[in-house]
């Protein structure tokens, strides 16, 4: 029985790792679809996750006794709970917030915290508790061993999610598949330890769990309060696509936001005719996203020889074609690629490039509004070709934030094009060209005999010469340019988001800072080092996620791969660290110096490299960095001593550091100050821990 116990518990820890990492990734994706899908949301989910898990570990520290039955019950709960968690996230959103409204920062944070708390507290609790179960029953199992075992599960879960499940399965099925191992271990534990009533209870739960999680109709049903009547639902690797039907109207939603509805004449006419009417002849047009509905019909009025429509997600165009929302034409080519990557690599040149994307409030979108992108677009344009793009704008008053946003974009575009004109329509349309630009669009359309439903009658009432000139006068010529790594637009948009919801992250930031300082006061020296390592590890992970997003776009797809690369480094690192455990302070100091050096390398790499860096380098770097983070953990535990500070204290320091690192870099430094400033922050934090290790004073274990 005793022999069985250790094997079962080790498998339960691995099963927990497999399940938890998949649940974490599925939860991040769920929140991206429920709320504003930007970097702040990602950071808040990861921060809350780590914070609550750390708190769970702390709670475990209080418990002095353990029981196998309690462990098995809790493991069972951990295996089944992810399904109700996702259902609750979807249902509660509709009952807690106003239907159709986007909540503000504070509401999003507390909602995330409340909905994931049961799972994360339990997850944080169960790992140190499992160690206690083993050790109280005479098994000599160390925190380092626990760390390694958990990492094996995490890596397996990460690989499974990133390379298999994300491509073909919905959130519910993903959870069912990855919880399988843990459920099996729980059932076997009940059986082997002769807890037959609990075994049958768990068996019934398993049946219900499979029934609901593998039923696609049920999963669709849980989305209907948010979307109404759902016609199609695709969990694409790039995001969640839902097509709802309101009467005869179709609406396309991507990650919870409607981006296309039938009869969107105003948008179709403005985005196409403002740009194409400027050209003398329209032979080739490139549409970067936004090719559904009337758009292609409007383009066809100029009879171009070729229209290339680039869309990242093939699922989107496939469904649109099935619903007849992409006009068929022999001149049309649909290209499934990242728009920026396509423009960079295509050999063709165009008379017009029309970019139709949502507001650049993520790194993925920001990269279509930067100096680097405009430079690429110019190369893909014919002589005197035109680039057009748009951002949201309030036609009746230009707020300071809007002014800053438009000024930054104008000055950035001006670096590459001789003429830039902003037409204040329903959105602010930017026309960029070396040739002449005309403001009287209806006159240009009349010249070309192009008929329109909206522009002819509304243009002169909405886009008056007075409004065009008024806007131009208000632009700030000193506004900085928007670049890939210094996203000035994003910080303006975040400010706008906070202003719109009347919420400010200041109180939240101050409370977090206060709690962190309070926590740090009680830490041992080695725990502080683990805290900074956790912080740097998650900080670097966030930096790589966002740098990756800048260079390649598709973060929704690659998020799992990056997280897995980091997890993969932890395991061999921890195993390697176990070899040096008990050999004094030197290996620990070496790990500190290596981590610091790696941060400096990353800073130099990002600051001075030209052009895109292969994604494998990022994954390799993530592996290397987390290897040394993992290496450090058993060394710190060895220095403190298992009895003095068992797994819980070190795990809590690591988790809390990771939580603070996620928040500081992902939600504050990267979006507001850019990637380089975030890097400097991490370097400074690591310098502080280097100083503490090299020049020890105060509380220490050795």
């Amino acid at each position: 029985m005793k022999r069985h116990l250790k094997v079962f518990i080790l498998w339960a820890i691995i099963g927990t790792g497999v399940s938890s990492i998949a649940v974490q990734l599925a939860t991040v994706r769920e929140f991206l679809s429920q709320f504003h899908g930007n970097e702040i949301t990602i950071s808040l989910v990861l921060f809350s996750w780590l914070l609550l898990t750390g708190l769970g570990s702390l709670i475990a520290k209080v418990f002095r006794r353990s029981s196998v039955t309690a462990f098995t019950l809790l493991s069972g709960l951990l295996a089944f709970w992810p399904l109700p968690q996702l259902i609750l996230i979807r249902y509660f959103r509709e009952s807690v917030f106003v239907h159709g409204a986007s909540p503000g920062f504070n509401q999003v944070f507390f909602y995330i915290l409340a909905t994931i708390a049961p799972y994360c507290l339990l997850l944080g609790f169960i790992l140190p508790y499992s160690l206690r179960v083993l050790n109280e029953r005479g098994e000599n199992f160390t925190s380092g061993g626990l760390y390694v075992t958990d990492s094996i599960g995490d890596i397996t879960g990460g690989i499974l999610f990133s390379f298999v499940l994300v491509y073909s399965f919905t959130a519910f099925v993903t959870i069912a598949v990855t919880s399988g191992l843990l459920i099996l271990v729980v059932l076997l534990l009940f059986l082997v330890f002769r807890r037959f009533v609990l075994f049958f209870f768990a068996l019934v739960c398993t049946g219900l769990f499979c029934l609901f999680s593998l039923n696609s109709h049920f999963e669709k049903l849980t989305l209907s309060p948010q979307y109404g009547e759902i016609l199609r639902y695709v969990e694409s690797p790039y995001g969640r696509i839902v097509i709802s039907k309101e009467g005869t109207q179709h609406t396309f939603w991507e990650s919870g936001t409607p981006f296309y509805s039938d009869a969107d004449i105003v948008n179709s006419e403005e985005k196409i005719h403002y740009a194409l009417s400027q050209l003398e002849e329209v032979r080739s047009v490139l549409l970067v996203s936004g090719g559904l509905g009337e758009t292609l019909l409007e383009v066809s009025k100029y009879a171009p020889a070729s229209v290339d429509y680039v869309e990242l997600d093939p699922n989107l165009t496939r469904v649109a074609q099935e619903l007849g929302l992409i006009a068929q034409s022999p001149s049309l080519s649909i290209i499934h690629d990242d728009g920026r990557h396509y423009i960079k690599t295509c050999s063709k040149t165009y008379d017009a490039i029309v970019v139709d994307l949502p507001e650049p409030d993520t790194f993925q979108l920001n990269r279509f509004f930067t100096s680097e992108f405009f430079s690429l677009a110019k190369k893909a344009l014919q002589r005197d070709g035109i680039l057009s793009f748009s951002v949201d704008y309030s036609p009746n008053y230009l707020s300071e934030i809007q002014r800053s946003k438009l000024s930054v974009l104008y000055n950035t575009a001006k670096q590459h094009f001789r003429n830039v004109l902003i037409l204040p329509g329903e959105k602010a349309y930017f026309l960029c060209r070396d040739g002449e630009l005309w403001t009287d669009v209806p006159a240009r359309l009349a010249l070309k005999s192009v008929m329109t439903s909206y522009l002819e009658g509304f243009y002169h009432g909405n886009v008056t010469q007075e409004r065009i000139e008024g806007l131009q006068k208000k632009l700030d010529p000193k506004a900085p340019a928007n670049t890939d790594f210094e996203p000035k637009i994003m910080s303006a948009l975040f400010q706008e988001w906070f202003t719109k919801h009347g919420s400010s992250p200041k109180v939240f930031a101050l409370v977090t800072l206060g709690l962190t300082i309070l926590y740090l006061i009680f830490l041992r020296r080695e725990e502080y080092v683990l805290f900074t390592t956790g912080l740097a590890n998650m900080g670097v992970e966030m930096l790589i996620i966002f740098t990756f997003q800048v260079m390649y776009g598709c973060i929704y797809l690659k998020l799992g791969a990056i997280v897995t690369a980091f997890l993969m480094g932890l395991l061999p690192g921890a195993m390697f660290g176990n070899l040096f455990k008990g050999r004094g302070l030197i290996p620990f100091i070496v790990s500190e110096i290596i981590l610091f050096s790696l941060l400096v390398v990353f800073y130099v790499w990002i600051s001075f490299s030209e052009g895109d860096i292969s994604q494998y380098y990022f994954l390799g770097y993530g592996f290397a960095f987390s290897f040394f983070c993992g290496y450090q953990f058993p060394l710190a535990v060895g220095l403190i001593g298992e009895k003095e500070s068992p797994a819980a204290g070190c795990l809590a320091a690591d988790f809390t550091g990771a939580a603070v690192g996620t928040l500081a870099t992902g939600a504050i430094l990267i979006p507001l100050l850019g990637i380089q400033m975030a890097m400097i922050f991490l370097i400074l934090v690591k310098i502080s821990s280097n100083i503490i290790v090299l020049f020890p004073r105060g509380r220490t274990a050795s």
Partner: protein
Amino acid sequence: MRMTRKEFLKTVGIGLPALLCAGGGLCFGQSRGEDIRGEIFRKDAPAKPWKWSVEGFYYTSDGKNVQCQVCPNLCLLEPGDRSVCRSKVNIDGKLYSLAYGNPCSVHVDPIEKKPLHHFYPGTSVFSIATTGCNLRCLNCQNWEISQKKPEEVQSSELFPRDVVRESLRRESPSIAFTYSEAITYYEYMVDTARLGREAGLKNVLVSNGYINREPLLELCKVLDGANINLKSFDDRLYRALNGGTLQPVLNTLKILHEQGVWLEITTLVVPTYVEDPEMIKRMCGWILKELGPDYPLHLLRFSPQYRLTRLPPTPVATLEQLREVALGEGLRYVYLGNVPGHQGCHTTCPHCRRLLVERNGYLLKQVHLNKGHCKFCNHVIPGRWSQA
């Protein structure tokens, strides 16, 4: 006294969840209110009035506290407090408006943009707004000025006489008080409208209609036309989506009608909220009974705005259905807005059914009216028409 680790853990264990519960409760309470009405801004007033201040026209005072009487919010302000609409403050026991002569939006628009289809069609209107609003609509199109204080925006300086002069200079025969919420700059509006009328200009109010009887009666003396946004016909929806109540708006419509101000009504058809045909039927029944069949009703297509960004635009079929409901109830002029090129934008004669005004956006393609009469059957078409 040094805290032990155990004590610290206990403190964190109890304190953090308590803090989270308190914060969560506060945030969720705010986010899912059955009533999202605005709150008074305590101790937020400037120390003294600024250049663009005027003493309020309608308020009561006990020498220390004041109560604004302009709108149904009836803000009771202690010294140093600011009203719900953000424009009124209590400074030393007097109510001041901080929105007088400092418009943040100044434009010349077509009158059809307000929308007003039966009020001197084809003319332009000099349109102004200061900041502020007495409601908190989740889908506000102009939230960047309506949800701001006068001190928070860039403004022009245009005192009432300057507005009139500018309007004349730009050859706009009317002045519109629009964009944000005109009732919040009531004093500025009344003084400007008075001077405008003296100069032969028409005055137009574009508003949510959330105003009390006495100030409205005073305003009606200088008002020629109004477009009132009747946001729904359900008090619960008014509270949940707009932070107001329905009855004061209905009162406003009745008073404008009684006072002979030309009136057009706008309803934004918000999917899943304001799209119930039964509600529209009840609303039109009320309009018919209390105001008669002749005031135009504009049913506008919703598009995601401000905080209400996770709803689809209104299906055109829904608008068409609601238009049929309104016409079926007996309203004679029901228009569709934000649907370019739709037949529901044109005016037809309710008597001979011939097309009277064909619109292409703000442009009038055909007008078959003769001094407010149908050219074909001479039926009187209600409205304010040019006598030319």
